[in-house]
């Protein structure tokens, strides 16, 4: 595959408006003539930033799963629910579809996202040329599906707002919800800061050689 890329040609496109530019010199930061956005051939420090956000997400996913997401208090005592206990409760209760949704959205997706991002980062760092197309597709799926992990947070936030009947019954978001929300946001940022073109760079380099 001998495709000419803009980078090889020495061009760079604006990330904001897509206008193609010629670089002036390497020693300067460049901005788009049209919209004034910063210009760079690849997202700057993409790997570093993604790693940083990813590590943060890795750290926070531990309390996110261990700490209670929801504290529901009622007349007859209070109950705390972690994400997994919620899934288990729904499953035992017989609401299998709901349990499956919650499991996929709140446990499967964030974990697989973290693992996938880690894999992408590692593969890019090792300048792997293995299945770049699949990896790119994986990235696209990651980016798309990431926001759906927020479903648990939405539920918690909604219930917290709606179920406030004083001593009778009240639901509060637990510290796990904050950690979980942070995980989702961080992975979204991580996916955002990852530059998928990096997947192709080693491919181009080897094919162009």
């Amino acid at each position: 595959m001998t495709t000419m890329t803009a980078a090889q040609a020495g061009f760079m496109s604006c990330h904001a408006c897509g206008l193609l530019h010629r670089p002036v010199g390497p020693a300067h930061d460049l901005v788009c003539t049209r919209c004034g956005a910063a210009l760079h051939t690849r997202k700057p420090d993409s790997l570093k930033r993604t790693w940083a956000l990813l590590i943060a997400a890795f750290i926070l996913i531990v309390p996110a799963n261990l700490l209670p997401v929801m504290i529901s208090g009622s007349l007859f005592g209070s109950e705390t629910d972690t994400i997994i206990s919620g899934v288990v409760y729904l499953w035992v209760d017989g609401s299998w579809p709901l349990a499956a949704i919650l499991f996929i959205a709140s446990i499967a997706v964030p974990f697989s996202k973290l693992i996938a991002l880690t894999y992408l980062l590692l593969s890019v760092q090792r300048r792997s040329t293995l299945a770049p197309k699949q990896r790119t597709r994986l990235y696209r799926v990651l980016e798309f599906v990431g926001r759906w992990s927020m479903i648990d947070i939405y539920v918690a936030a909604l219930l917290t707002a709606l179920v406030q009947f004083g001593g009778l019954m009240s639901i509060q978001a637990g510290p796990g919800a904050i950690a979980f929300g942070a995980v989702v946001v961080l992975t979204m940022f991580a996916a955002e800061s990852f530059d998928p073109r990096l997947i192709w760079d080693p491919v181009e380099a080897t094919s162009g050689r």
Partner: protein
Amino acid sequence: MADRPHEPDAQDLPEAVAVSRRRFTPQLIWLIPIVAVLVGGWLAAKAILERGPTITITFKTAEGLEAGKTKIKYKDVEIGLVKTITLSPNRKGIVATAELSKQSEEFLREDTRFFVVRPRITAGGVSGLGTLLSGGYIGIDIGKSREPRRDFVGLEVAPIVTGEEPGRQFMLRADDLGSTDVGSPVYFRRVTVGQVVATALDKDGKGVTFTIFIQAPYDQYVTKETRFWNASGIDVSLDSSGIQVRTESVMSILVGGIAFQVESDSLPAPPADANTIFTLFSDRTEALKRADIIVDKYLLVFDGSVRGLSVGAPLDFRGVTIGEVVRIGVSIDPKTLVFRMPVEVKLFPRRLAARHFTGGTLAPLESEDARWRRMKQLVDHGLRAQLRSGNLLTGQLYVALDFFPGSPKVTIDLAKKPPEIPTIPGTFEELQETLTGIVKKLDKLQIEEIGGDARKVLASLDETLKGVDVLLKSVDAGLVPDLRRTLDTAAQTLKSAEGTLKSAEGTLSSVSPLQADLQQTLRELNRTLTAVRTLADMLQQHPESLIRGKPGPAP
């Protein structure tokens, strides 16, 4: 350029604008993981630091317990969570492993108690209702010991009174449980001041021990002189003082209860120590009757019947009950075959001391011998026991102790135990004896002889009367004709007298000349008197006429 749009010339592309390089530090992005580490580390550290001790509690059953769900609460504050529940090695119970919070370390004492709080509905009340829906939880009653402990044996039933409640515990011994149960109230002057905490059968099986808890400040009313009694049910008693019905409250009729009181006339006593053992009496009367620590036993031997005397009958000293009958027996002298009725009585010498009002008193005697010697002195002064009728309707008897100075001298044999207090026949008995004596005397009279004599007397009287009759008849025959003749003469005399009287009447009648003359004379006299009046009037008006004569007509 325009005609070759598909091959753009690099030169046609706009040139990027160069700006001065900002001192961008890509390391800033690493703040995010650092913050995440800090937050995560803080959470982890908190979790580790807050992790308290792990304890094991053994229960008989895991009913109401759930691993990971059941909480341990103190005053309804969550201080721990049951992590796992396993069967005990000997399969006789279950072992719940619980993780407690950090600050609960000091709760784990040697005598700390754990119990499962379940809904409990008794006649006395409802508790743990909240656990009906939320499931049970494990309660904790913190002990007072200093020794730490990690493995506990849980109570099956929540204790009624927890350790931190101020108050004191006492023990009561009774013959049976009655209707009292754990949780039954304890009353003091009908105020609920405590509860029955535990009931247990004595090891020898001869009684029941109650553990009661009296809340502060009411526990100060429990003194060494306090009497406890079973206040459950209705107490109806019939004794020499009549029918008595006594209840504590409707509640206690239903659920039972224990009441206590200090006998009003007992000596003031210091508050009892915690865990003092008291006797639980079956009812109030009995409790207050036995309000004595010192109990002396004496024997009274009665010669007569003791019908109407029952065990428990009062021993009375001039109206003050100072004891009671314990036993009534029969004894026989094998030589003389004389039956006697020995009656054993309990005497509470303190009762008289408690009623002590003012003035001199005898020093209380602690030793039994000394008291017996005093009794001897009293008997020397004439103290005797006597059966008296307490209630004429029911025929109940009571034993009275009183001084009978004139009674024959008797001395107590103190070697005999219990010593015998001499008796004298009772008033009723005395009366009976007297009557018997009279009857006996009557019996001794020779009524038949008297009857014979009387008959003889009557026979002679009859003859005498007959003689009188004959005499009267002779009188009748001899005297009566003479008497009749005399009477006839008298009648004739009276007739002639009547004629005389009639002629006298004729003389005096109006047509007789004597009367006409008399009338004429009277008329004359009347006229004369009228003339005299006229003269008197004229003389009154004209007194001068006496001298000048009758005046002429007025000029």
